[in-house]
């Protein structure tokens, strides 16, 4: 009898393990479809949209709600991740061929990589020529690989140099012009930054800084430095980096990047991109290079008197500005490709896009919206005129990020290298090390 009880007990324990597991699964499924009742109706489709977290999580639900109102048989569920994790999540999930989600956020330079890996469903079938005609050519180009339209743009982007009027006035520095023809050189920005710091914070106790980059050490923003001197990101074959990222132009640009943190000490070390904006809004930064999406935040910040000017350039170079932004892709493994593509169309060329641009203040990739910015008088006055400068940059000075199947690797290694240079590593050595690592990481694409 005792033995029987023991056997019975042990079987119970084993069972409990598996029952425990399956219970968990049930719960998870319960969580993934909040509108269970609706899902039971026939023809009902729930799309999962994998995207960036943060502010987006507050802005996207309203637009999605609008879409659901117009398409009663479709529900869209948002699955958001922070910037630093999003790319890894996509690799892990897509690498396993998951059907967990249908629509994903694709950073413009990664369209080629995702296509190469077979993550994306071509959208040509779902986007008519008329649909595409609404979009600006550079955004279509960024979403097209080997003639196939793989990812539809959400918006494009540009960078401005914001400045703190109060600090500049107090230090007796003249305010920069909004005219792109009269944009400041980096050399002038450094000089003005030094003046501000010397005048207002000689012993460093006030925590005032001359210059900050919003996306510090991220290639998206810092590439504008080598670009301004004529340096490219990769060779024409999309794989060669030797002689490109360790070229004299890169070394010179990175020497400047080194100097602002280490020699002139006009920019702080140790801050992360997520902390940058707060530094500017707290009124402690004289010049702040950042995206147009910051304007509504600065408008709402009390006691911040700010202005903006076009992106600076090197005296010996030409104006070059960051561009490109997020696109939408459809998971090639999705069971609801048609519905997913319809949603993407709404968000990219349809009404959803208008709502999105209104909410997030990005630079639009839809021609009518961009034309409105260029021609409408409403965009002549502060602070709307910031979009006019951005639109000008997008059309005249924008340099896209390198086009390569290995952009993920490129971005990771160049990002780490920029951070090393910021922390005091010799620029030339750091860039040569980066070439060595990149050669090894990109070798797989040479086959």
């Amino acid at each position, binding site marked *: 009898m005792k033995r029987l009880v023991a056997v019975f007990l042990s079987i119970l324990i084993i069972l409990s393990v598996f029952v425990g597991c399956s219970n968990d699964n049930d719960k998870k499924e319960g969580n993934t479809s909040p509108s269970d009742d609706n899902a039971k109706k026939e023809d009902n489709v729930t799309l999962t949209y994998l995207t960036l977290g943060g502010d987006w999580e507050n802005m996207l639900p309203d637009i999605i709600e609008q879409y659901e109102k117009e398409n009663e048989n479709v529900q869209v569920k948002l699955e958001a991740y922070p910037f630093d994790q999003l790319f890894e999540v996509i690799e892990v999930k897509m690498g396993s061929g998951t059907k967990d989600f249908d629509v994903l956020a694709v950073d413009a330079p990664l369209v080629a990589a995702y296509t190469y890996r077979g993550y994306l469903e071509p959208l040509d079938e779902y986007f008519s020529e008329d649909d595409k005609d609404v979009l600006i050519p550079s955004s279509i180009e960024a979403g097209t690989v080997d003639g196939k339209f793989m990812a539809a743009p959400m918006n494009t982007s540009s960078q401005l140099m914001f400045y703190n009027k109060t600090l500049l006035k107090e230090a007796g520095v003249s305010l920069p012009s909004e005219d792109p023809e009269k944009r400041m050189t980096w050399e002038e920005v450094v000089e003005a930054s030094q003046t501000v710091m010397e005048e207002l914070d000689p012993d460093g106790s006030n925590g005032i800084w001359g210059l900050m980059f919003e996306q510090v050490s991220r290639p998206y923003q810092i590439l504008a430095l080598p670009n301004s001197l004529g340096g490219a990101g990769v060779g024409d074959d999309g794989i060669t980096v030797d002689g490109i990222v360790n070229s004299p132009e890169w070394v010179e640009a990175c020497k400047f990047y080194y100097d602002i943190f280490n020699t002139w000490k006009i920019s702080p070390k140790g801050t992360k991109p997520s902390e940058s904006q707060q530094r500017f809004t707290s009124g402690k930064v004289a010049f702040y290079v950042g995206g147009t999406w910051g304007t509504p935040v600065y408008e709402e910040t009390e006691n911040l008197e700010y202005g903006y000017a076009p992106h600076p350039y090197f005296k010996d170079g030409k104006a070059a500005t960051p561009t490109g932004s997020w696109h939408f892709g459809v998971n090639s493994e999705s069971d609801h490709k048609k519905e997913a593509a319809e949603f993407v169309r709404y968000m990219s060329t349809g009404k959803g896009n208008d709502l999105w641009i209104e909410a997030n203040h990005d630079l639009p990739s839809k021609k009518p919206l961009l034309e409105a910015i260029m021609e409408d008088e409403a965009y002549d006055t502060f602070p709307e005129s910031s979009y006019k400068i951005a639109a000008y940059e997008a059309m005249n000075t924008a340099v896209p990020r390198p086009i390569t199947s290995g952009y993920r690797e490129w971005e990771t290694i160049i990002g780490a290298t920029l*951070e*090393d240079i910021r922390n*005091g590593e010799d620029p030339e050595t750091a860039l040569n090390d980066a070439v060595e690592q990149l050669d090894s990481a990109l070798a797989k694409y040479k086959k």
Partner: protein
Amino acid sequence: MKKRIVPYMFILPAMVLLIIFKIYPIFIAIIGSLFDSGFGGSKAFVGIANYLRLFKDGVFWQSLKVTLLFNIFVNPIQIALALFMALLVNEQVKGINIFRSVYYVPVAISMTVAAVIWGIMLNPNSGIVNSFLGIFGISPQPFLTSQRQALPSIIAITSWKGVPYWMMFLLAGLQGIPKSIYEAAKIDGCNKLNTIFKITIPLLKRSLAFVVISDTITNLLLFSPMYILTNGGPNMSTNVLMYEAYKSAFSYMDMGRAYSMITILLILIFIVVGMQTRLLKADY
């Protein structure tokens, strides 16, 4: 016969889970390290080519060096401090439980949260640690942004969290030592220091062996503070093998390289733990 089955039935659930979540992945890693995994699930057998590639790879050697350097310091520091603290809180004084609880607080904070908080405190410009050092006239230190100070900073952060955790195991071991032995020693005229080295530590060997081995494994596999705080920088000074393997898999999409690194790390753990087990074998 039935009698034989019952004990196995009891350990079966644990074994099943271990096999699924530990043993099976180990085999995946070892086998995966022999393949060149292309995109879309394509695989090609390449033998030991991944390993040969690693041995020529400067970044791999740098990561291995950092991993060893980190462990050579962090493990002895953590264990020595844990033992010291365990001996202190083993004293029977009034309110000792309050001390034990306070010391244990860092354990209750997740590594991620601890890393973020320490990252803010160690900020070179506005961090509280530099303000504190300033009181004593010490100039601001770069901490995590300096090639020389980043690894020591991470050792300090992980120890802040690790020491109290291991202290608890040692304290449990200490309390298992019968009081009568100490009394006998006292009667024989043994002083405090001698008691520690001649009685406490030898009798603590089992707990100590567990702590040494577990701590070593934990730290050989640790990468979250590097991932959160330094991304392996500055200049790869905190780029441990585990983090490089992680980057290989999820940033460089090079599973072959990641698997072979993990396999090497596994071998390293086997060697180190094997040596520790032999050295710390209790003789009672």
